């Protein structure tokens, strides 16, 4: 057992630090220009623009430790905004199950960040029970296209998406999981109607998407008909490990301490108040432990083993910690935490306190609600039977 980075890893870390500081955004310069250029420079480093992609598809082929270093360093630095849908969710499916032609058609645009994707999974009656989805895809008699009808919901950023990867029902008999087909659907066409859903933080990021008589060519089907569930399941596991956000929480905890430290209380500040201080301390202790849970999981993967039982708790613990951070930030904001949309009332961190906390409630709902995650752990890890 050894937690120190070896010489090679240390020099990689130095390299990453240098890259991030040299390419940081300069205030006053055009953000979008910088963003696209950042990815180009990262690509020239040998796939740093697509760290998680396998070498065969242009990724850097890092060890798990290198990924960990990248996560740690990027969570502290300013990196351009990026969306996971094409890059980390659809791309692995294309690589594993897509045809060569589909890979050539879609992967370059995903890598160059020129096409936005959204995920058409959940439906009004298919949330935690995703396999219950009903959006119907019927193959035409000549076998050239599917006719798709149905409604998707909670579709993040559907309103700016060019394409949707979508789970559809192609067989209504037998096991629910065995009649699902994975289709790629262009969003900008008649028959696709995107309706915003305003969530309780007051913002618009999710949507309801109505799909009416949309023709999807069979070339847009991934793999075989009725096998889509298997492709999507791998993707869900991928989505879940990405949601723990532990390095980001470590950085967020540092800012929480600074923010609470700036709230004056008599001669001291909020971090001197016993109740608040202890809550921050409790959170920090949990975060220190879960950071090592993640390391154990990485080390396990590094030695080429199947993910160990510890990895199954990462999304559960990680999201719980993110929520507690948001809650403490709201509490630190005190009376100003409900003053959203104001520009000059109280400390600036405080005003978004309540809306940040409210938005964070979704963390334990999306990507598999915590109750469902625990069912999975009970069954697959502890071997408990219902």
């Amino acid at each position, binding site marked *: 057992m050894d937690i120190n980075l070896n010489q090679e890893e240390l020099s990689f870390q130095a390299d990453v630090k240098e890259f991030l500081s040299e390419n940081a955004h300069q205030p006053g310069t055009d953000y979008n220009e910088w963003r696209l250029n950042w990815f180009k420079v990262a690509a020239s480093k040998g796939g740093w623009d697509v760290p998680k992609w396998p070498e065969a598809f242009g990724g850097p082929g890092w060890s798990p430790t290198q990924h960990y270093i990248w996560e740690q360093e990027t969570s502290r630095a300013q990196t351009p905004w990026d969306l996971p849908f094409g890059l980390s969710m659809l791309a692995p499916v294309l690589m594993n199950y897509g045809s060569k032609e589909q890979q050539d058609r879609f992967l370059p645009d995903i890598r160059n960040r020129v096409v936005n994707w959204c995920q058409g999974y959940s439906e009004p009656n298919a*949330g935690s029970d995703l396999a219950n989805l009903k959006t119907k895809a019927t193959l035409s008699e000549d076998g050239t296209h599917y006719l798709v009808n149905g409604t998707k919901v*909670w579709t993040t950023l559907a309103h700016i998406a060019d394409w949707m990867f979508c789970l559809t029902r192609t067989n209504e008999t037998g096991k629910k999981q065995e009649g699902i087909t994975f289709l790629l659907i262009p969003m900008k066409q008649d028959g696709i109607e995107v309706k915003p859903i305003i969530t*309780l933080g007051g913002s618009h990021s999710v949507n309801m998407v109505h799909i009416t008589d949309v023709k999807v060519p069979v070339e847009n089907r991934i793999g075989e008909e009725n096998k889509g569930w298997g492709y999507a399941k791998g993707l869900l596991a991928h989505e879940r490990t990405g949601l723990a956000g532990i390095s980001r929480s470590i950085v967020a905890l540092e800012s929480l301490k600074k923010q609470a430290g700036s709230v004056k209380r008599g001669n001291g500040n909020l971090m001197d*108040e016993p109740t608040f201080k202890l809550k921050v301390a409790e959170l920090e202790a949990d975060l220190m432990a879960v950071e090592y849970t993640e390391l154990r999981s990485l080390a396990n993967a590094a030695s080429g083993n199947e993910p160990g039982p510890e990895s199954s708790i990462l999304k559960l613990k990680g999201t719980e910690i993110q929520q507690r951070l948001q809650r403490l930030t709201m509490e630190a904001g005190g*009376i*100003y935490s409900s003053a959203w949309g104001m520009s000059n009332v*109280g400390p600036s961190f405080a005003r978004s306190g309540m809306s940040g906390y*409210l938005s964070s409630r979704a963390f334990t*709902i999306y990507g598999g*609600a915590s109750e469902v995650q625990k069912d999975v752990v009970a069954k697959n890890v502890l071997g408990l039977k219902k």
Partner: protein
Amino acid sequence: MNFELSETQSILKDSVERFIAESYSLDKRQSLVKSELGFSQDNWKKMAELGWLSITVPESAGGFGGNQIDSMIMMEEFGKGLVLEPFFISTVVAGQILCELGNEEQKQDWLTGLITGDCQLTFAYAEEQARFDLEDVLTRAKPDEKGGFIIDGTKSMVLYAASADAMIVSCRTSGGQYEKKGITLFLVPKDLKGVHIDSFETVDGQRAAEVRFENVRVDGNALLGEEGVAFSTIKRAQQIGILALCAEATGIMECLYKDTASYTQDREQFDRPMSEFQVIQHRLVDMFMEYEQCKSMLLRATLEFVHNPDGSSRSIHALKYLVGKTAKFIGENAIQLHGGMGMTEELNIAHYFKRLLTIDILFGNSDYHLEKFAA
């Protein structure tokens, strides 16, 4: 011992319930939230006609002489309807201060209007550096040669300041920043020169403002009670305010646990109603238990205050702590069990939760009162 409502109290509860059912659908409420005023003048008139604005005013001043049990009954129902009209800050809090400290002339000028609904007041007590401490007051009032005062300072989160006709403002007239002695209350008409009101919508759809007083001159008759000794009145206003807010929160939490229980019975996942899963059942039982604990604490603190105001402060601290803590527990679980639907503005759930969170930060949050309770 008896926890039943009296006949008059039952009638009051029924009449508020009827008002909510008739005038407070979520759609109607949300369109009021979006209006410039943020509430309905018609509703306010109706509340006056129904006599609700005078219930806690003493009979000697033309009211019904009711007590905190009556306001508890009303506030619980207002909570269920997510009522926007400034009953809490104008009638319950400012009305109480005016009844306690106002001289005949001030009562004549303002209390009558409060009862008829023709005027509204608010209470400006919070300051940024004070967080939740009522005695930490930097806004200063200095006497001038003509028997008046000059007020300078900034008050935060002044509820419904833009629609109020006047504000009761806590000012330091002597003593150091943290001293309880030396605090004085003034009744400041809103349209005086130097009063700057920066109004905004809070997360719960209500209105608040940052109010800056810049060399504001008030007459001697703006002084409420005697100079330098207002702290005990402020403290009592806080206690009465907490009882009212916690009653509102308790009404909201009742709706949250009941609505969630009913949603899980309707919503099917994995080919059966969600309510058939044991993990869901136990969660609902926890929500129900914690709600009942709040209800008990609300009754305890309210009854103790009514019988012995000076001996009830520990119970009031315990109540505000428990309600703040439980509000988060019940609200978080209501959203979790509603899944994505709980995250939208379409159901009451989100709006209830936002109001609960705002209640927690008024007159001291959960941590603040736990520390006071433990002290």
